[in-house]
C-alpha cells in the first residue's frame, strides 16, 4: 500500500530536519524563511521525504525545485502521495 502523508506530517518532517521549534514551520514557510532551510537544508528535506515515502520521492524531479512547504505539498498531492 502506498504511504500517504498529511499536511501535518509534511510540516513535521521539514521541522524535524531543520531542527525548528513547534509552530516555526507552517504551510507558508519557504526556503530562507526558516533557519537552516538553505540549499543544504533542502537536501535533508528531500532525503527525509524519500525515506518516509518508501523511496518514492527520489523519482520526483520537481521536488528539487520546490521552494516552499506548499509547493512540496502540491507536488506530493499531484503524485498521490498526500492524504486529501
Amino acid at each position, binding site marked *: 500500500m502506498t504511504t500517504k502523508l498529511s499536511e501535518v506530517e509534511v510540516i513535521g518532517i521539514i521541522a524535524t530536519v531543520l531542527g525548528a521549534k513547534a509552530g516555526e514551520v507552517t504551510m507558508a514557510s519557504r526556503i530562507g524563511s526558516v533557519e537552516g532551510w538553505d540549499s543544504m537544508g533542502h537536501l535533508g528535506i*528531500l*532525503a527525509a521525504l524519500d525515506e518516509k515515502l518508501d523511496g518514492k520521492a527520489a523519482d520526483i524531479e520537481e521536488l528539487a525545485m520546490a521552494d516552499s512547504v506548499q509547493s512540496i505539498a502540491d507536488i506530493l498531492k499531484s503524485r498521490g502521495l498526500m492524504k486529501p
Partner: protein
Amino acid sequence: MKVAIERLEYALAPNAEDGDRLKAENPDWRIDDIQGKTGIKTRYIASPDQTALDLAIQAAEKLLGSGVDRERIQATIFVTQSPDYNLPTSACIAQDRLRLSTASLAFDINLGCSGFVYGLSVGGALIESGVCENVLLLCADTYSKYIDKADRTCRPIFSDAGAAALLARSEVDALGPFELGTDGSGHQNLIVPNSGARIQTAAARQLHMDGAKVFMFTMAKVPLCVGALLAKAKLEAGDVDLFVFHQASAVVIENIVRRLKLPQEKVFLNFQDVGNTVSASIPIALKDAAEAGRLKPGALVMMVGFGVGYSWGACLLRWKEIA
C-alpha cells in the same frame, strides 16, 4: 577483463582548509550545520600556481618511484575537468614531464566524478584488446579554481587532489563488468558556463551547482546503476565485499546507502578527511581502504562514480595486493 590495478598512489593539494578557516572568512556561515550535512571536516586546496596536472604528476612520481620502469608505460590516460589548457591535452604534457616513452599513447578524458570508472573501462579495453600491455591512469581535479570563496554551496564540499593507477594485464578476470550511463539533459546543473567556446565572457569562470537537482539525480540513478551491474554480473549485493562510492558528501552517500539497504560495514567512507576530490575520489578511497585493511587480496569491490554530465558508471574489481 583480465586487467588489474597493480599500483595506486595519490597526492592531496598542500593547503588544508577546515571549518575554522571557512568560518573566519565567512562569519555568517553556520559551519556546524554545514559540516553536519556534508560530513566533510577537512579539504585540500591547490596553491595559486598549482594545477591538476601538477597533482597528477606528484601522484604518478610516487607510483613510478616505487620500482616501476618508466619505459614500460605504454599509455597515459588523464581524467580531468581542470586541464592546464583547452589545448594541448594534459596527458601529452604528463608524458613529457614524467619522461615516458614517446612510443606511448596519451589522451585526456573530460569527465568528473564518474571519470575513474570510465578510465578503467577505456584503459582496461586497451589492455584487453592488445593495444597496450599497461596503462597509467591519472585522475586529478582542482575545482577550487572555479569556486568563489563566498560560495556556500560548493566551497565546503570540493577538494583538490590527484591520483595515479597502473593498470596491467592480469592472469585472472579481475575487472568488470561495467555499467555506464549518461543523461546530458542535466548538464546545466553542474557546470562552469564560460569554460569553453559556447559562452565567452571576461567574467571569472565559476562552478554552478544546483545541489537539489544533482542530489535528486543521484538518489534516483545511482541505485538503479548498482542494481543493473549486480544483475549483469549475476550477483547479489551481499556478494560484494566493499562498496566504494564517489565520495560526494555525507548526505549523498547516506541516502544512496539507505535506498540500496546496504550494511554500513560494507561501505567505505573517507570524505570526512579528504573532501570531494571529483575524479580522484574513488582511487583515493580505494588506496585508503587498502591501507586501512578493508581490502584483502581477492576481495570483490564495487566502485560507483556519478555526477557532472550527468554521467555515471559502476564496475567490479577483484582486488589484488597493490604496491
